């Protein structure tokens, strides 16, 4: 048996089955070896080319297929899992670790999915794994948040499934050669502007993917659910769901304009809510939305360079977001506190954590010599290039200019937010009196390794650029990425937005607050509306109906429907009278249909 016969995801699923059998050091060794094995297998498949087919309902499934963007995502998913395992190893969380393998296996499966059905199955496997990770968080609201998370993703999954069914059946009727193919919806992107029944399938797929990407109005699940994971759980969570969504959008919907608008909204939303956030991990979740916004912009622009940028940014982002969450997770683990207002002055005793957080923070803001700089600037450059190309063609492109300025504004904002604010409040500001040591060696090792990757990719961007979807464009760009102009743009913006933070420090006081989001509609408004408006109204109707029934002759008819409120009534058709009445009514309906319609 050759290595290429083995789907990379299967390695991780096997791991999920194997792990419970081991204990102690062996467990650690196996857990660390498996992601690396999966990485090796992924690359074997990528270089050899995957070709396994499974017949399904007269069509073929392609569970191992290499898309242009597969190498980037498969690589980072494996690295991420290994890093997360290293970080979590001091804490014996058996269920969580197994779930993490299932979760990462799902993500890896999606990255190699050559058809829509395989993609969907792995997609749902991820939902399952991630929900269990949230539940194993053992935080205050882990259970409730996990439920909301699961509900949201299950609905997103249903939208995705509906879309897939519709798209595939449409393709079958058109006689497409490979109706299940998971690739770019190019034909549909052209007729994008109108929303109709005939392209409803594609819209539903897009919605399903966007739910996982945290696009509006579904952004709130990220800051709601992720902070409820354990210290290591949140690290795993931050990496896979949104990035897999980015991957699928990149494969299927590159160049769809609406993604730009959604991305801009997310970029700004993440900063604005992040400024107000008090829970340090929730703040990072808001910045996660912000960063995914940047990726969506890259996908929406749809040029080769921007797609490269989005993929590279996903890679870089997984690393530094994991790093940031590891650092904040270490703080949480060592102090037991997560509110920024309760922390402060930790620079004395947690220097390693501090420096790792700073490196992560600089990367997320795109500071020169960090991975964020070399990846994000590709998207920025792509917007400019596309704008001038469209200007030359005389096509409307004002939206690209606006996008560019807002993009830069959000970049400045995220530095203020996820780098300066976070570092300042955790490690400096007033002395909280806490004197926790740096975390255990494995957590430190994981952080240092990821910090190293951040710097490595910042200094030698070529390493990442050569596995991007369009290597030619990336190689061209590598020549200009460190131009003085680029560097000075970033330094000027970031430096002075940092200044703005310190000037505004007096009004940035922390309190134990949350800020309402769109999820208020379904968490508060709809339940209240049902309880206080709709239900009383229905009860009024109920009374009216009862009055009518009471005026009828015959006790059976009159009392057929006894006191139960309408909520019970519909489910309780015990009495014979109502069904019999319905039979007669149906007969009447049929006679009317049969006698009237043919004469029309």
């Amino acid at each position: 048996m050759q290595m290429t016969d083995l789907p990379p995801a299967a390695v991780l699923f096997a791991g999920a089955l194997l792990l419970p059998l081991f204990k102690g050091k062996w467990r650690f060794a196996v857990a660390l070896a498996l992601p690396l094995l999966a990485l090796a297998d992924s690359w074997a498949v990528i270089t050899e080319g995957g070709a396994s087919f499974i017949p399904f309902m007269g069509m073929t499934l392609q569970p191992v297929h290499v898309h242009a963007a597969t190498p980037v995502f498969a690589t980072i998913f494996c690295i991420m899992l290994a890093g997360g395992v290293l970080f979590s190893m001091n804490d014996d969380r058996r269920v969580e670790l197994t779930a993490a393998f299932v979760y990462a296996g799902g993500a890896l499966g999606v990255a190699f999915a050559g058809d829509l059905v395989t993609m969907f199955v792995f997609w749902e496997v991820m939902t399952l794994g991630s929900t269990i990770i949230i539940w194993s968080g053992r935080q205050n609201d882990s259970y409730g948040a996990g439920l909301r998370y699961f509900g949201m993703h299950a609905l997103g999954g249903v939208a995705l499934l509906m879309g897939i069914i519709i798209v595939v059946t449409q393709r079958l009727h058109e006689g497409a050669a490979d109706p299940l193919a998971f690739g770019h919806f190019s034909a549909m992107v052209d007729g994008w502007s109108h929303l109709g029944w005939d392209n409803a399938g594609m819209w539903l797929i897009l919605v399903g993917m966007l739910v996982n990407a945290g696009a509006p109005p579904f952004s709130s699940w990220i800051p709601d659910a992720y902070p409820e994971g354990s210290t290591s759980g949140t690290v795993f969570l931050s990496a896979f769901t949104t990035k897999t969504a980015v991957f699928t959008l990149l494969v299927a919907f590159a160049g769809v304009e609406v993604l730009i608008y959604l991305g801009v909204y997310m970029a700004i939303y993440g900063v604005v809510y992040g400024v107000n956030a008090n829970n340090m991990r929730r703040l990072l979740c808001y910045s996660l939305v912000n960063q995914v916004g940047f990726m969506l912009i890259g996908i929406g622009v749809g040029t080769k360079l921007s797609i490269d940028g989005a993929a590279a940014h996903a890679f870089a982002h997984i690393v530094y977001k994991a790093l940031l969450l590891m650092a904040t997770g270490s703080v949480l683990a060592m102090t037991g506190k997560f509110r920024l207002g309760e922390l402060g002055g930790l620079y004395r005793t947690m220097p390693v954590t501090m420096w790792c957080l700073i490196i992560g923070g600089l990367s997320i803001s795109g500071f020169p010599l960090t991975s964020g700089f070399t990846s994000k600037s590709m998207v920025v450059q792509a917007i400019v290039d596309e704008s001038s190309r469209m200007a030359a063609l005389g096509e409307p492109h004002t939206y690209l200019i606006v996008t560019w300025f807002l993009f830069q504004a959000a970049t400045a904002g995220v530095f203020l937010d996820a780098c300066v604010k976070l570092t300042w409040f955790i490690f400096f500001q007033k002395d909280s009196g806490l004197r926790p040591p740096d975390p255990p060696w494995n957590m430190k090792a994981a952080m240092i390794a990821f910090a190293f990757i951040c710097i490595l990719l910042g200094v030698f961007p070529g390493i990442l650029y050569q596995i991007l979807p369009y290597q030619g464009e990336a190689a061209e760009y590598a020549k200009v990425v460190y131009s003085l102009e680029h560097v000075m743009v970033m330094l000027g913006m970031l430096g002075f937005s940092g200044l703005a933070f310190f000037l505004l420090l007096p009004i940035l006081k922390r309190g134990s607050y949350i800020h309402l989001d769109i999820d208020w509609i379904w968490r508060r408004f709809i339940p209240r509306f049902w309880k206080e408006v709709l239900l009383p109204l229905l009860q009024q109707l109920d009374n009216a109906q009862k009055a009518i029934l009471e005026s009828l002759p015959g006790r059976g008819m009159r009392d057929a429907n006894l006191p139960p409120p309408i909520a019970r009534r519909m489910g309780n058709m015990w009495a014979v009278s109502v069904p019999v009445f319905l039979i007669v009514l149906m007969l009447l309906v049929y006679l009317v249909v049969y006698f009237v319609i043919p004469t029309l």
Partner: protein
Amino acid sequence: MQIVLDYYNYWACILIMMIGFYGIMAKSNLVKKVISLAIFQTGILVFYISTGKIDGGTGPVRVADGAAEAVYSNPLPHALMLTAIVVGVSTMAVALAIIVNIRQAYGTIDEVDIETMEHERGE
């Protein structure tokens, strides 16, 4: 008006059936409900048999050779209705047996009273 008079037998059957229906819907006593069901079924039996009737037709008995044209009613509906009557009787028997059990279990055969009891029990 003509249509009513021409098909008076069918209208009568429909009337019987409707009376049965009314009873099933309006009576809360289960035995009365079952009796109404029987009335409804009887309406159908009569209806079926009357379809086989031919004006001036005799019983479907073989007449002597050479006798006048034998016009006789269609015997098949009668035969079928014998089966239907058996079915109806069985239904009655099952229904009444169940009602006896209901009386033992609830102490009443009034649908409304039973429903009230179950409602109070929280079913």
